[in-house]
């Protein structure tokens, strides 16, 4: 075997690993002091890349000035995120700041897209591209720059944390926030400093990656966040030196993986590694710890709330009106509402899992994808009638979804969110790469329309009625489960899983049951969606949809069944009616999410 290419792969892996390390160090710093996984981190990285691009393109700055502008710009952005977006959420439910960073990331990405256009841009490498021969491989000037910045910033960070007063305060806060505050540490200032440093590092990472690939675009945030999180998890949540090791390890794994299997598998390796770490070494590779979870006071997970009790006649009346709507003969309205109700199937499932059981799933759209593909393939490859294929797809999704999420069942809090995010990505990547079964990137075309007993439902009206009936049926069933001992057990797990287990509630079992029931509903939803549009591919149900579904569920009130349907219909239909451009729509979703978390965390109808 030739050694040369492997040397190149190693260099490449270490360079990309350096970028991941820059991201992961920031995430670890933030987690350390704020106990928060910052999902806006990738967006800061993107903003950094765009600041670099703008300053090179419009100001013709030399490299050091470019980097300086990026550091200052992103540092300020980090301060703004902490100050405006997160500080007000101190002492609120654990999940609030995490959701807020998701909202911030939506807003930042859309702003970048609106200001700089969604098209990719070239980011010139300001060093020129000279390569040196070493051993059997080569190394370029940019490689050396990236390595230098990686090592340099690690050294600076070490000196800062070790030898400055503020650095000491950061370490003290990371150890124990309350104790630090009692000793007179200004933890607000510490938080702000950490966000500034972390964001500056992230922004530099963004510029360097842009130069490395000579390409930037507004969609690079999500991937960056994920990679940074994976790298940090490898090192151990909040472990700063660990994050550097994790970044390098991730870079190497990807680089060798690509060498062996091809580049379409790149992310699959990253996420497989993530799940492996979460399952086998949830404290990271570099530390061993066994801890009993702290005793919380009441209701720290979701906002305290007294749900709005809607009178039954009102709900029944709304259903009757909805059922009569097709008689008004407004196809556009019906089409829009059908889309809203299809989202409601996803929202019902998510409100059970995330709201009732408290497992904030960030990969829920993957269940739709499984359902859509299952039903589509049953129809196309096995010739099953659609009215048989759809419920079968529901069952398949319930089984497969529960199986996939199995490793995440024993996880808690933020770990669940990361794991489900990773699992969702894995599902999309498997669909993309398993061309033999799924036809890969081409997707499934020419799917037959929904049918009942041999009758095709092709009219807008009949599809609407079908979806409405499904939503009402599943909602009633879910309400019934919630009023049984299952509802009690699920909510007890959400409120305090330690106490629930101490009273004999087998948390894993009941979580699995929730995922199974939720999987069925979402699978049916995905299947119907696929048949209604007669086409799906691996991107139809993307991670964005998972986040959108979470927004719907929070809007309605976590765990609230009527709320989920309302949230889904409102968030799908309103932008449609006002004919928002697509860009502004995502921006609006992000703002809605942020405002809700800040001012009405219990949503419109209240947490149940």
């Amino acid at each position, binding site marked *: 075997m030739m050694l040369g290419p492997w040397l190149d792969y190693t260099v490449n892996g270490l360079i990309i690993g350096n970028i991941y390390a820059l991201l992961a160090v920031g995430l670890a710093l933030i987690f350390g002091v704020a106990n928060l996984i910052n999902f806006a981190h990738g967006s800061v990285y993107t903003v950094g890349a765009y600041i670099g691009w703008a300053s090179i393109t419009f100001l013709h700055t030399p490299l050091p000035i470019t980097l300086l502008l990026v550091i200052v710009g992103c540092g300020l952005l980090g301060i703004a995120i902490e100050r405006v977006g997160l500080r007000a959420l101190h002492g609120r439910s654990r999940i609030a700041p995490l959701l807020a960073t998701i909202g911030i990331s939506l807003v930042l990405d859309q702003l970048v897209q609106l200001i700089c256009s969604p098209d990719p841009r070239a980011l010139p490498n300001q060093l020129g591209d000279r390569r040196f021969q070493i051993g059997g491989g080569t190394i370029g000037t940019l490689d050396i720059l990236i390595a230098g910045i990686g090592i340099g910033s690690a050294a600076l960070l070490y000196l800062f944390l070790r030898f400055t007063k503020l650095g000491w305060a950061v370490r003290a806060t990371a150890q124990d926030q309350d104790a630090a505050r009692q000793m007179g540490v200004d933890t607000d200032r510490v938080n702000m400093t950490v966000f500034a440093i972390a964001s500056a590092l992230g922004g530099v990472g963004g510029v360097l990656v842009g130069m490395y690939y000579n390409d930037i675009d507004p969609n690079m945030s999500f991937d960056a966040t994920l990679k940074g999180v994976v790298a940090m998890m490898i090192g151990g949540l909040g472990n700063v030196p660990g994050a550097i090791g994790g970044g390098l390890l991730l870079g190497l794994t990807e680089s060798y993986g690509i060498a062996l299997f091809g580049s379409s598998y790149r992310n699959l390796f990253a996420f497989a590694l993530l799940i492996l770490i979460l399952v086998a070494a949830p404290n990271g590779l570099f530390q061993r710890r066994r801890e009993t979870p702290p*005793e919380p006071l009441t209701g720290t997970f979701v906002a305290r709330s007294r749900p709005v009790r809607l009178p039954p006649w009102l709900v029944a009346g709304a259903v009757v009106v909805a059922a009569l709507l097709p008689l008004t003969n407004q196809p556009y309205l019906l089409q829009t509402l059908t889309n809203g109700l299809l989202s409601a199937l996803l929202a019902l499932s998510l409100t059970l899992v995330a709201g009732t059981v408290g497992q904030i799933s960030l990969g829920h759209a993957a269940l739709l994808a499984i359902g859509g593909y299952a039903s589509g393939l049953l129809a196309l490859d096995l010739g099953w009638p659609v009215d048989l294929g759809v419920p079968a797809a529901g069952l398949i999704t319930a089984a497969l979804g529960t199986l996939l999420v199995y490793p995440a069942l024993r996880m808690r809090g933020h770990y669940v969110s990361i794991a489900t995010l990773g699992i969702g990505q894995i599902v999309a990547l498997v669909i993309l790469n398993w061309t033999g079964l799924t036809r890969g990137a081409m997707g499934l075309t020419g799917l037959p329309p929904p049918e009942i007993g041999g009758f095709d439902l092709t009219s807008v009206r009949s599809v609407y009625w079908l979806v409405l009936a499904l939503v009402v049926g599943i909602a009633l069933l879910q309400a019934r*489960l919630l009023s049984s001992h299952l509802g009690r057990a699920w909510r007890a797990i959400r409120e305090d899983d330690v106490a629930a287990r101490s009273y004999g509630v087998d948390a894993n079992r009941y979580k699995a049951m929730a995922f199974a029931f939720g999987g069925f509903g979402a699978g049916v939803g995905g299947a119907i969606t696929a048949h209604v549009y007669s086409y799906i591919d691996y991107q139809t149900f993307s991670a964005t949809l998972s986040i959108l579904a979470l927004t719907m569920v929070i809007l309605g009130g976590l765990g609230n069944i009527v709320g989920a349907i309302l949230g889904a219909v409102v968030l799908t239909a309103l932008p449609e009616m006002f004919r928002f451009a697509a860009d502004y729509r995502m921006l609006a979703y992000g703002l809605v999410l942020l405002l809700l978390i800040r001012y009405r965390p219990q949503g419109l109808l209240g947490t149940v």
Partner: protein
Amino acid sequence: MLQVRGLARRFGGVTAVAGIDLDVAEGEFVSIIGPNGAGKSTLFNLMSGLDRPDAGSVRFDGVDVTGARPERLAALGLARTFQHGRVFGNLSVLDNVLVGAHTRLRAARPAVPVLGALLELALAAILPGSVRAEERALRADAEKILAMFGDRLLPRRDQPAFGLSYANRRRVEIARALALRPRLLMMDEPTAGMNETETAEMQELIAGLKARGQTILLIEHKLEMVMRLSDRVLAMDDGRRIAEGPPDAVRHDPAVIEAYLGHASMGQAEAAE
């Protein structure tokens, strides 16, 4: 009923529990006392499956349950309350108590291997008569338990627990534990943060439980209550047993007096700083 042998647990450099032996017989009332940080709560955690010991063993009813999962211990009839309160904030008072009765569900939770969970889902959706009847009976029982606390909890049974006063949350903890119909009831400082009247009321209630023959293990700082109720007292300091025996003997044991005084004087020194 309960046999603890050589139980130990270390946290980094701190040895929270260092080789504790403890026996509790059926119907007995045993109290554990000791200064702050003595390792009492850690001992409870080790016995109730929330934490795994580094050494030693726990047997419950002759079965080895060392490091067993908390669900299993609950199913065997062990119920505990938490020192800092772990009520389910967004659940109503009644629902909190009903979660305590979870292990008593039979009709709703068929003991079928493999497919049991699916069957349980289906039963909850169909709600056959047996499941309904069981639910009704448990509800009635839960209300009876709430009634033991006079009019403290009963009028608030449909309110979310987060709105309760601190003392009432402690009561909900105990009501929830009683709903399990425990063979062994373990309470971690049930009167913490209660005023004198409330403490007296709680003492009354616990005395009533004892009179009913309930086996009880109690952690408590209020020595007067310990002296009045206990059959036997275990005194701990720094994770070790420093004395054990009838309440009076332990109270006058020099090691116990010294442990309390030593910590008290340390406390004064800290306060003086």
